[in-house]
């Protein structure tokens, strides 16, 4: 079962570790998002959701006072599939990580 809470904890821990003192530098962000998504994915695989296809989406944006609204809509089987997301913010950037788990039937 895809447990949102544990996944969220994982994500949160990783984000905290990786983004603690990171400033928003536009050139470095693509790389950072990539590596973040990879680490999170690997970490989630370690959690052992064997029958789930994991999709990890990482969005990092700069905090400049603009309003941001992010939403996701999933076409899936709500009984089995689930998602978890976590938001990390410091004073220069925000990072939204959404991890979706789709069940292999």
């Amino acid at each position, binding site marked *: 079962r895809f447990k949102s809470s544990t996944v969220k904890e994982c994500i949160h821990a990783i984000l905290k570790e990786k983004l603690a003192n990171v400033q928003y530098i536009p050139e470095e962000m693509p790389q950072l998002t990539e590596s973040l998504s990879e680490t999170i994915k690997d970490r989630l695989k370690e959690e052992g959701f064997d029958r789930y296809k994991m999709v990890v989406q990482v969005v990092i944006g700069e905090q400049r006072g603009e309003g941001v*609204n992010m939403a996701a809509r999933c076409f899936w089987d709500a009984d089995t599939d689930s998602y978890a997301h976590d938001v990390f913010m410091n004073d220069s950037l925000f990072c939204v990580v959404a991890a979706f788990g789709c069940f292999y*039937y």
Partner: protein
Amino acid sequence: MWMAITEEWSAVNKEITRKDLTETLKTSGVETKRAAEQVTSADQGVRRPGQALTLSGGWLSAASQPDSQNEDQKHREKTFQKEKSVHDIDTHKHEHKDRGKSKERMRERFKSGERDGDKMRERERGKEHQREGDRERYQDKLQESSLEKERYHVPKDKDRESNRERDKKHKRHEIKQIDTQTNLKSFEERDKEHHRRRESRHHLEEEKTRSEERERRHTEKKDKDTKKSIDKFLAYKAEEGERVYKLQKDRELDKEGERRHREKKEYSVGPGKERFSKERSHKRYEKEEEEKHKLKRSKEGSSHGDREGTVRDKGKLIEKEERDTRQEEVKDTRIYNSDTGFDNFSANYEDDFEDYEDDFDDDEDKSGEERGAEENLREIPFSRTSEIEEIQRAISAENDRICTSLSKKIENVKKEPIMERQYPSVRNSSCGIFMDFQMANQRQSSRSMASKQKKRSSELLPLIDLDFSVSFSLLDLPPVNEYDMYIRNFGKMNTKQAYVQCNEDNLERDIQTEEVETLEKWTQHPGESALVSGGEEHFNRILLWTYASLTPKIDSQRLANFLRSACQVIAVLLEEDQVATQPRWKLRSRQTSLSISDSCFQLNTNQPFLHDRKISCLCVSQVQRQTLLSVHGLPEKAGVGLLHRKSIICVWNIWQPSSPQKVLICDSEVICCCFSPNKTTLVFAGTIDGSLLVWDLREDSRMHPHMMISETDWTFRVPTFSTDGILNSVNHTSPILAVEPVSTSLNTDQNYGLSSLSYQEEMSGPPFQIASMDENGILNMWVVVELQKVDLAGSQTDLGLIPGGKVKLVHSSAMELNNSLFPKDVRQRMPQTLTIKFLSSNPNHFIVGTNIGLVGHSTRHDLKVLPKLFRPQESGLRSISINTIDFFPFGKPLFLVGCSDGSIRLHQMTSEYPLMQWNDSTNGQPVIALQWALTRPSVFFVLDASSNIYIWDLLENDLLPVAKQTIPSENVVTMALLGEPEKTNGLLGLALAKESGEIDIQYVKEKWALPQPGESEKLHLLLLQSF
């Protein structure tokens, strides 16, 4: 499976043969050389078998065999020469190495094979030298193990023989050439040679065992194939003659190479070939180093000559052996690996082989030029012998021929290994019928799987319903407003905010302080209950509680009483102290002492407010005998201020004579006064204008006016209550002549129904009444009421009450004594009541003194009593005023009457006429005061108007007074007795008020003061007799 394996085997065999051929061709050049050397060594071995044996020991202990020195020497020389040639080859090799460093890796591999060959040769030769027997045994083993070897052994031997011959010639040549070389060099060479030999021996042993094994397997598993191949080889041999042997030998070598290759492989599984080659080069480098090292050492040791050299060699030998053992260890592991490799022969062999081929291909690519170079190299040493040269040429020619043909083949094969490396299994699977089956199987299974999955999915799909049921909001970050943004940026920067106001004088200042925190707390002392202290929150509740329960418990009355008495005691003590320190008082008292008295003292009436005031009355409390009231009349000249036209009553404590306790004032002249019967808390006074006054001595002094007189603060107490405000109908209209307390305590039987009033006992003892009688014969009875509530604003109904006063008098009854008391005949004489006394044993009865010499007797309730009148012994009515009456204080109903004509009568209550009457005791002087002694029943004191004091002792003399004392200086106005009848200390004071206003206290001598035993009985008898 089997099919596949056999097929592969055949392929492998083919490959082996092919490779063998190439190997043979490649190594043939080396082999020829080796063959030649082997010949020499064999030759030596044949010639000196014993020598070799000794030598074999001699390497270890050459010094221990001096007997064979000569032979040894020869042998050594020979070996030196022989080795020289080898050394040459070695040097060439080195040169070669130096030259072709770029191709070193490839060449190394090739060279390793070559050198192995060399080593092999050397090893064999060394063996021949050292252990002839060993070698033969070994060869025997070889023969036993492999038929082929056996077979080729003979031709090999033959070949050797011929080679030997040839070699010998060549060697001899060499000897001659190299003879010139120094011993030193020969040592070096020998060392090197030896070292190499030692190394190679191990290799060889290994190789042998391995080859044996391999051979055995070959024979066992593929005997036919191998035999075929061997046959082929034989055919080859037929063509090439002696080369067949070499071929065979090469094949062995080949295998050895192969093995090496495998080893390499094993090494190169991880790090690759490069590492291995490095290792090898490193090894070689080590070897070189060692050689150099040895060279150096041998150089050092060369001066010591042969023996030392040999000793040294021995040391080195040991060293080397150590090294060898080390190498052996390494090799053992290798052997193990290779053995395991052989165990998996069917699987590994092929791969190894192919890998080898692969490597070989690489070698082959450059083999052309390398070969050329090698050949050139070899030509140098070999050119010395024409034979060898010929052989060499033949070999090279053949090599060339085969090389070209092989390279083509190999080029075809080349593609495979590459594939093989990447997909070894694929290659295996793709190249057989079996693999087709497998493919088919796979296909089939995958098909079935697919169908299964399809089925499953078709089953599952209807169960699963996908939907867009929810949409998640991942992030909602509201836009930050401008101010927050500014603050955020501002906070980050290291800036400060400041403001400036241009209009500087328009600044406003404000100070804000914290409000003072207040908290209400209360405590209760003494802590009588559990709740001793509390805070605000309890306040209201506590108040209620206090009113409900605490108030009755506070005995302020008791406390006040205690304080009052304590204060008095303290004051008395202080006074006495002062008297003791001030002799002035004593002196004065001595002067004033009288003959009837032991001692005397004066109350200090020398107060400024008492000057020029006559004392009209003295009064002693019935219960507190030391308390004295003195009434001071109006001064002759008008005073000023507060005390103008005021009469004064002083309350004294005779123990404290220095000053009056309290000073009471009133507006009119006081005629008579008295204390309350039970306690000295109330003072009653009757005035000349008919008002009855009450002073409450317990009142706070602050209620009354103060005056500073001669540095002392005096409080002048005004009356608490006055009957002036009471309606005239009941009030006195003439001067009050007498005021008497009437105690009701003794007639409690009549007090029924009044128990509710008992609360008053707490305050002022039992309730009592005050009787006041005026000149008109009106007797008023007043009830003394103590108010529970104090009205500081003053009472509207009780007009005579001072604001804050607590005591008032309520009129109880009035009697017209003149009408009720006297019969009509007496009434015609217009009697006037002068004094009144209440019977102490029965307060309802009272007697009234008149101005006609009669004493009336009546009761408060108009009861008929007998006798109604007490008459003097003389009959007839005379105008004799009764000045004083005194009841007998010791219980009997007797009383003394002092008359203005100087007569004294002793009456008893039951008879109309007196018991005794003394008419001229005072010489006709009117009796002013008369009083029974308080301590002795038979003694009484009489004061007449001319200031004479008479002391009567009835037991001593019932006709005349026993003593007479005249007060010399002044007129004595009145007299009062002080004494405590309860105590028998013999103190009986006589207070004498003088006209000048002084008060003397005379202590009567003990003979009149101390009671005598049986005195009352004697008096009783006396009275009975007189009656």
